[in-house]
């Protein structure tokens, strides 16, 4: 049975070496090229694979943010359509308000064409809270799972997934619609095909603001956020290290063990 998949994608800075703006005391990402969050590549790829497994299925990429290029990248990698949720009211959002915006957009998509699965990457490489998938599921009041390393069986009514835990693998069965946050073991993303790239170039993506989503601007962006980034700073430098010197390897080994015992590390 064909299904409708929504893949949530985020635009992130291509580098993690982000300076602090001395004026604001906040990270300064302006000027750093933006890319599709690397962890979202796995979610997009999984949508493409589900489309192959369940012929006739469609995948819609969804982003909250000003950068529409991530939708183009998702389209090049196999998504059929894309929606951008953007506008000044969405600026300065945190995981709580951004997930509320995602949920509202998913509801709108769902009303138009029923959604079966919503896929997410493990976390965004910038803020890395790793919670937006489960937060979106909670706003929608849909079942969900995070840490998904395998989608075993999916039909229009339910899905069986494998979840990677610290001590092993859980299997869960969820009724649809459901939200799944993936991990990188789920697949090996393929590079966009030439055909995909060509199609993506021409694609147009609708842009929805708070009004189209029926959201009060006070619920989204900085106004709807539960947290505020007060300040960012580089981590304190590690104290200078010591070199374990010795004429022979045996001498070095003995000195290392001395030092570990002295510092009560063993």
């Amino acid at each position, binding site marked *: 049975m064909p299904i409708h998949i929504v893949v949530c994608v985020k635009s992130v800075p291509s580098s993690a070496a982000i300076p602090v703006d001395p004026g604001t005391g906040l990270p300064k990402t302006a000027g750093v090229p933006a890319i599709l969050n690397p962890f979202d590549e796995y979610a997009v790829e999984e949508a493409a694979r589900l489309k192959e497994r369940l012929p006739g299925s469609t995948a819609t990429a969804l982003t909250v943010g000003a950068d529409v290029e991530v939708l183009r990248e998702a389209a090049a990698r196999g998504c059929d359509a894309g929606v951008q949720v953007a506008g000044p009211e969405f600026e300065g959002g945190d995981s709580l308000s951004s997930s509320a915006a995602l949920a509202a957009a998913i509801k709108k998509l769902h009303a138009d064409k029923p959604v079966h699965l919503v896929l997410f990457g493990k976390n965004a490489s910038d803020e890395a*809270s790793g919670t937006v998938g489960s937060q979106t599921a909670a706003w929608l009041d849909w079942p969900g*799972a995070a840490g998904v390393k395998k989608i075993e069986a999916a039909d229009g009514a339910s899905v069986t997934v494998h979840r990677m835990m610290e001590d092993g693998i859980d299997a869960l069965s969820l009724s649809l619609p459901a939200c799944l946050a993936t991990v990188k073991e789920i697949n090996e993303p393929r590079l966009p095909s030439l055909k995909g790239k060509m199609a993506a170039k021409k694609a147009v993506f609708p842009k929805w603001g708070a009004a189209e989503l029926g959201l009060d601007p006070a619920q989204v962006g900085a106004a709807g956020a539960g947290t505020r980034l007060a300040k960012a700073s*580089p981590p304190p430098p590690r104290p200078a290290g010591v070199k374990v010197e010795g004429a022979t390897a045996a001498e070095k080994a003995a000195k290392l063990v001395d030092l570990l015992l002295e510092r009560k590390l063993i």
Partner: protein
Amino acid sequence: MANPGILIVVAPQRGVLPPAAFELVTAGRRLADALKEPLSAVVLSDKAQGPAAELAARGVDKVYAVEHPLLADFVEELHAKAAAEAARKSGTGKILVSSSVAGRALAARLAVLLKAGLAADVFEIRPDGRVLRPLFSGNLIAEVEFKTPVAVISVAPMTFPRAEKAAKTGAVEPLAFDPGAPRSRFVSFKAEESNEVDLGAAERVVSGGRGLGGPEGFKLVFDLAHALGAAVGASRAAVDSGWIPYRHQVGLTGRSVRPKLYVAVGISGQIQHLAGMSSSGTVVAINPDKDCPMMQTANVAVQGDYKELIPLIIADIKKRRG
């Protein structure tokens, strides 16, 4: 600033309390003492009484025991629903959860149910209500402020010492839970077939990288780990080479660890690896290249070939233990 009171949310895994639960008790107790506010906890499990009593014995003032067969294994919507009910009942403003796979999802759902701000992977909680967490793979530290009456904080494992038995034992109160008609069903669990120490909860970690030269190099890494009572980690280069399974990977796309002692063997220390271990207590590097980033950032740098050094280190430890 969030409302008064601190609530720890604990979901025992496979029937046992994870060590991180006792770390949360310490984090909660410190905050409670600094603010002169009560410390409570909620245990969500099919058998909650035992674990609840254990938390009470470690100094939690009041522990809610929510017992239901459907809480035996982690199902995010059910656990979050039960936790939200306990949070509303206790009326607490600051909720602490561990940043495990389950804890992260639980904190996320709970935050939405309580319309609460959420900060993940927190390693410091200030009495003024602000928390510290990493940003951009740990290249920056964020100071986060809560705007909501309730704050949900997921605490990075290994950041606080584990609470011991306290002088004063708290009270345990059972709480009923109606799961409604759940749409998620736990099917089964398959354990990793090894009884190795879990990386995330280990006080010592020995990791191997491409410098081991091949899978046989991990034999020495495991031997050293056994001698030190350590868990075994790896760089992505070693994992991608197929020398060791992915679950051992430390770094940006692997696990984050924060042991007291981290020994990096044959790992050059690229930023993506450092992202997963740079907040370790003491970092020891074993590497012939004294100029590589790992040797530069290590607290203790041992220049040399691991094949020669590790057997000598193991022999030395054994000798001293007699």
